[in-house]
């Protein structure tokens, strides 16, 4: 049996839509129903993100091209030093999400974060952001280099580490096999998929697709990874908006289920999702 996170409920806030804990200020959510809150991906250097406009929603999907706007390692360290991280973690367990623009950046930020990784129950590595030119999705293109990176990160930390995988760099179960064989504890499947839409002003918008349209694809990914790897810890991500979908993801092999875009519709759905699992 692989290591497990033992969350109080299997409901997890996805990296990105939940920012750096802002939803903890919304009074309609009972956080005892939420198992963990993943922070937005932090990279070594701060990123100011892509040029606006950055986001559109249709009835079935959202497209975003945020471009990993984040305060960088220094910003994260500040949140640790000023007590923000402790304060958030006292309400809900936190998962740290890390990203990078290159092999060295992933390793470097891991080293830098080591002194305070015990404040987080796990570290998720974003290998699948479609909205940045380097790093993100593109880090997995060279399979051998990516494998070396997984190995390098594993030797840097004993933390519970999770690889967040997309489906655009090969069969997701094959990617998960590589993650597992390098001694990692879990995978999050999936991330947004590259999408295109024409907005109401006639502009072509390229970005990552999230929301309801993603659900069956994410469910299949969970199913395939579980079939290939009975022991790996799986966080499901993609288009989960209702308690039935949480149950279905768990039934097909997820250990936890993350909620992202659904927060924008009504964050109080977390209560309905978490209720049946809380002890």
């Amino acid at each position, binding site marked *: 049996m692989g290591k497990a996170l033992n969350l109080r409920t299997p409901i997890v806030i996805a990296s*990105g*839509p*939940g*920012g*750096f*804990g*802002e*939803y903890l*200020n*919304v*009074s*309609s959510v009972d956080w005892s129903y939420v198992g963990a809150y993943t922070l*937005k991906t932090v990279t070594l250097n*701060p990123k*100011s*993100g892509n*040029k*606006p*406009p*950055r*986001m*559109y*929603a*249709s*009835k*079935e*999907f*959202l497209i*975003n091209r*945020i471009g990993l*706007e*984040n*305060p960088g390692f220094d*910003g994260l360290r500040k*949140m640790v030093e000023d007590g*923000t991280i402790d304060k958030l973690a006292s309400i809900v367990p936190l998962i740290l999400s890390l990203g990078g623009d290159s092999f060295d950046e992933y390793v470097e930020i891991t080293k830098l974060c080591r002194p305070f990784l015990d404040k987080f129950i796990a570290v998720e590595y974003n290998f699948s952001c479609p909205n940045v030119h380097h790093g993100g999705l593109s880090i997995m293109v060279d399979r051998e280099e990516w494998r070396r990176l997984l190995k390098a990160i594993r030797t840097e930390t004993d933390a519970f580490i999770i690889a967040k995988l997309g489906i655009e760099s090969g069969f997701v179960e094959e990617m998960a096999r590589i993650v597992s064989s390098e001694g990692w504890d879990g995978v999050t499947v999936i991330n947004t998929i590259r999408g295109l839409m024409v907005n*109401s002003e006639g502009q072509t918008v390229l970005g990552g697709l999230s*929301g*309801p349209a993603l659900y069956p694809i994410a469910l299949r990914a969970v199913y395939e990874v579980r079939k290939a790897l009975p022991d790996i810890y799986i966080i499901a991500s993609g288009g989960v908006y209702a308690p039935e979908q949480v149950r279905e993801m768990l039934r097909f092999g997820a250990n936890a289920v993350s909620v992202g*875009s659904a*927060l*924008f*519709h*009504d*964050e*109080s759905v977390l209560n309905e999702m978490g209720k049946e699992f809380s002890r």
Partner: protein
Amino acid sequence: MASFSIKNVKYNAYLLTKKSTIEITDRTYLISFQEDLEFSPGQFCMVNVDGAGLTRKPFTLGRIEGTVAISVKIAGKGSEYIVKTSERLNVLAPLGNAFVPENRNGAVVVAPSCLAEGLHLSEHFKIPLFVASKSALSREITSQFELNTVVGNDGYLRLLEELNNSRFDWIFVSGSRIMEELAVRNMPNKLVYVSLNEYMACGIGACKGCAVETMNGIKHACTDGPVFRGDEIWARH
């Protein structure tokens, strides 16, 4: 670089019951609610549209006769739902920063889609209100409120010229992006404030989707605004 401090605030989700829905002009409505809630001039709310859309929609807040009001232009399924439903609306509020002008020697210019906010600012700061509309306002509205209205683009440009030469120190403009940009460019003598209407998904600073390019780098309409100095967004010529 944008700021990342997490504000020490509570955002509440309210269920608001409609009191009245009045047509302001073509496809634009003034909705007032039975409940009141605490907010400051310039702040906004995010309204849930149930099955009609995936994200809440942002609206600036106003207060009419002691209760909360918003104005809504029907632009798609979500706004249509907000206007037509008889169900209570799930509303996250109050969001964004209060508008705090340096003095009370100002004026407010709004499009019909921001009338609730305009009425509130005008009453709160005791300053004149101008409504710039594409088409005439409904009888129901003009009989209920005393409004200075200009109709059409030419009327709007004449108003801007007048205001540019007026005694006011500042002008607050809330409407479409085009209307706000015109105001900034055509009132070079004045300090112009604009209330931005960027697409918003969360309204609370989490998603980074509402980014705006300013003279001082990327900012976020929901947490740094929604009110900005016009010359921070558009250069004057």
